[in-house]
């Protein structure tokens, strides 16, 4: 049930009232009651743009931030994107998170949005931006949280996609190492100790996935076959009861390597097989694809036919991108960007 909107305090009289407020009164509010108030905000502001209020409440002070971070569940559990770190966390388990990408050809920039309205790709919450930088021997797509500042040196840089010269092999780099799922202790009293003990890894580029494209027998007229190996996700993540690493903060941590890496392959795709609530049906394009998990041993169980990512052209420079667990919005976006770059086939 949505909270009824009611303003107890009008903005203009607020300042005078606030000056007279006894500080001790609210400071003595029992934690369980503060939590009750913050839970209500998380529940009622469940879609964007109002969800920005959840982020605002998490910026008031340390105590509020800890409570809010504990209340807000990751996209895997809640199906919602809240903090920027949500973009680095696995998508929902049982449903596809619907996004769309807009391409600006003149500036060679791509913008990822969370779809707010199934009926249109005009209504969206900005998530990430990527800018293509062509070099003599390779091409980089720099990915950033800020659509106005998409550069490697920017403080909002989150990673990049690098392609080889031919546009047949790609590597996704993350600006921070994948987390093993161990949460950083937030307890104040041990904060200093953690700083000394936790080994710091310098910010850089951590390879988290490799993508390769092959032509099929029809050559450039047919769909490409795409293989995607996720270095950052163990094979067990796609099996029943498995978990994928979840970053919890934009922090530095130790890098874990996994013995067995999941392997995603593209399914041959027909536009009518797109499992989506989008009202826009994709137009036929060799860029369109669906990605499913592929087992090591070649024996595919039901969990291996679950579509993890689907990408489809719906307009001249508009594409839908739907993704779910175990990949994150960032990984999904980077994989889709590779589809723009392959030079072995044309639209």
């Amino acid at each position, binding site marked *: 049930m949505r909270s009824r909107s009611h303003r107890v305090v009008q903005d203009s009289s607020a300042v005078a009232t606030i000056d007279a407020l006894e500080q001790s009164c609210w400071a003595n509010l*029992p934690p369980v009651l503060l939590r009750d108030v913050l839970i209500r905000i998380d529940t009622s502001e469940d879609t964007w743009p109002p969800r920005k209020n959840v982020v605002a409440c998490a910026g008031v002070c340390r105590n509020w931030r800890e409570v809010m971070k504990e209340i807000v569940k990751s996209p895997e559990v809640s199906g919602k994107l809240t903090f920027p770190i949500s973009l680095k966390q696995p998508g929902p388990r049982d449903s596809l998170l619907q996004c769309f990408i807009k391409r600006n050809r003149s500036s060679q920039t791509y913008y990822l949005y969370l779809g707010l309205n199934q009926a249109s790709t005009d209504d969206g919450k900005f998530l990430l931006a990527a800018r293509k930088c062509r070099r003599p021997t390779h091409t980089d797509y720099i990915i950033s949280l800020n659509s106005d500042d998409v550069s490697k040196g920017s403080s909002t840089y989150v990673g990049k996609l690098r392609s080889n010269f031919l546009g047949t092999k790609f590597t996704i780099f993350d600006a921070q190492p994948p987390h093993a799922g161990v949460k950083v202790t937030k307890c104040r009293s041990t904060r200093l100790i953690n700083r000394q003990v936790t080994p710091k890894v310098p910010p850089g580029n951590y390879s988290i996935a490799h993508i390769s494209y092959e032509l099929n027998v029809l050559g450039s007229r047919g769909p490409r076959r795409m293989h995607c190996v996720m270095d950052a996700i163990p094979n067990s993540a796609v099996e029943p009861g498995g978990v994928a690493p979840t970053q919890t903060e934009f922090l530095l941590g130790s890098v874990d390597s996994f013995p067995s890496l999941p392997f995603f392959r593209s399914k041959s795709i027909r536009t009518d097989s797109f499992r989506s609530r989008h009202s826009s049906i994709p137009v036929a394009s060799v860029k369109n694809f669906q990605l499913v998990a592929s087992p090591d041993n070649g024996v595919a169980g039901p969990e291996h036919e679950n579509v993890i990512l689907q990408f489809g052209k719906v307009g001249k420079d508009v594409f839908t991108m739907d993704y779910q667990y175990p990949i994150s919005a960032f990984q999904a976006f980077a994989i889709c960007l590779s589809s723009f770059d392959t030079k072995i086939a044309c639209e």
Partner: protein
Amino acid sequence: MKFCTVKQYFDDENNNNVTNGIATTVIPLPNKHLKIKANNKEMEQYEQELLRNVMPQELTKLILAANYLNFKEALDFFCRTVANAIQNKSVDYVRKFFGLESDFEPGEEEKLCKEFAWSFEGVDED
């Protein structure tokens, strides 16, 4: 039975949890609830009337009173009121409303600024 703590309240000699003024506001609520339970619109009007005379600093006392009296509906209502009051307000406003100061370190504040910038980017005003 709406109040579990009322008997104890009257038995307590030194009761700092619920002052007379607050009790006057909170105690009539259950009767009113019972009378107009079926009619949500009437209840909403009654609640708005009640809140018109309440200052923000009294809200915390009302919450504490409702909590002490174990009066779930009133507690629900007052917490909801606080949530509504800070809905769609800036971080600075919320800090001032609760009399809180930022205790983030400079590095953390910078991270927060980026977080806010992303949350408010490309989003139409409500």
